[in-house]
């Protein structure tokens, strides 16, 4: 009985509590997914009753921090989907390189792997000096990790393979210093990043960008919320700017999708 520890009614009660007490709105998240995450946490932390779980979430701010970290999915990797990064490297970023200044928003950046990946490509295209990467997430704890630029060394082999497949030509290990079990990424990369908390559900547009990357975040939202977030992105992308989504996400059913043109076979759209 791993999953059916929280029923639908209890889920609704919890999500309402969280909105009321902490201002985080999960009501329009994909139901099946958030129910699974919350049930998993309930079992993981050995709560004996729903009442106890509910009380702890409502009254213990430290526990809520954990709750937030555990129910949002923070699985990510560097140069995930190498062909996507290849298209960014060969087609998207060279176009942005003609601008005097490049602003990129990595929305839902989690622990920062994608922000560092894009910074590496910008550096190799000699564009990093005139770029600024805004990396945001709902969860302040992961942003703290992202800022440090520290990643587990045992993952670097996979990242390095991804990097090479994505068209990278350098020795990947020149971008970090290995220190015990951690790889510390070069400061020249993070110096062009601004980390900030931002909630796609409730916060507004805060700048205009030439590229917004939001990959594997929208799968956790229901359709209505996805459309709201597309509108937020639309208000935050310059004309002829780009929007990049995860490999299974799509703009297709969004009413304004006709104002965007898809780039080849990747999940990248250009605003017309």
């Amino acid at each position, binding site marked *: *009985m*791993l*999953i*059916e520890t929280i029923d639908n009614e209890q889920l609704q009660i919890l999500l309402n509590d969280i909105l009321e007490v902490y201002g985080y709105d999960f009501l329009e998240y*994909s*139901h*099946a*997914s958030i*129910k*699974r*995450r919350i049930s998993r946490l309930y079992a993981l932390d050995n709560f004996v009753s729903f009442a106890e779980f509910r009380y702890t979430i409502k009254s213990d701010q430290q526990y809520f921090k954990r709750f937030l970290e555990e129910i949002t*999915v923070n*699985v990510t990797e560097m140069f995930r989907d190498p062909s996507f990064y290849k298209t960014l490297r060969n087609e998207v970023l060279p176009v942005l390189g003609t601008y005097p200044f490049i602003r990129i928003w990595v929305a839902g950046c989690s622990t920062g792997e994608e922000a560092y990946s894009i910074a590496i490509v910008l550096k190799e295209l000699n564009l990093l000096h005139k770029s600024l990467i805004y990396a945001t997430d709902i969860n302040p704890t992961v942003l703290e990790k992202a800022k440090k630029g520290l990643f587990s060394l045992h993952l670097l082999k996979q990242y390095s393979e991804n990097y090479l497949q994505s068209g990278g030509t350098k020795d990947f290990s020149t971008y970090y210093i290995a220190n015990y079990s951690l790889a510390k990424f070069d400061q020249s990369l993070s110096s062009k990043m601004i980390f900030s908390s931002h909630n796609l559900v409730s916060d507004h547009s805060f700048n205009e960008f030439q590229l917004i990357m939001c990959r*594997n975040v929208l*799968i*956790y939202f*229901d*359709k209505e919320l*996805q459309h709201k977030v597309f509108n937020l992105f639309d208000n935050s992308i310059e004309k002829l700017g780009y929007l990049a989504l*995860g490999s*299974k*996400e*799509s703009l297709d*059913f969004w009413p304004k999708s006709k104002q965007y043109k898809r780039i080849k076979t990747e999940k990248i759209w250009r605003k017309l």
Partner: protein
Amino acid sequence: MAQTLTKKCSALIIGGSAGSLDVLLEMFPKLRDDLTFPIIIVTHRKSGSDSLLIDLLKSRTSLKVAEAEEKAAIIPGNVYIAPADYHLLIEESGTFSLDYSEKINYSRPSIDVTFQSAADIFHQDLVCILLSGSNADGVEGLKMVNNYGGRVVIQNPLTASMPYMPQQAALNVSVDAVLNSDQMAMYINELNGS
């Protein structure tokens, strides 16, 4: 089998790992083309091989075979394949959700995740089949199918090319039917509603 005739099937989920492809390839040509429920297939495989499995199955049936797409409606009579590298969940609205969270049983997609999610939605109207495989993914999910009164079917471990997975199911859950690969299609065809 008498019980089978009186129970409704709203969805059939098939889970499998190593050695399950041959079973699917054997069963698909024999499936009737007017199934009254969707078939959802969750198998362990390398990412990037999605279209291969879809093409193989397409060539063996006139049923519509497609990858399970994020937020797409689940239509009876269609066959859906869980995409590699995502967990596949089912929403109350009869649509799919994808999830890129941690691997379960070293697997993404995990059969447990889809079995559990489907049990939560379809309750007793769910049929789950667990095929050949060499880890225990799916067994936790089948426990929940049991709890909701859904039907559990396993491939006969004696004839499965990798018996471990159906064997673990046989040891841990109550099983409604144990079938050889050549009996699968007939069983599925008989699930068709009146």
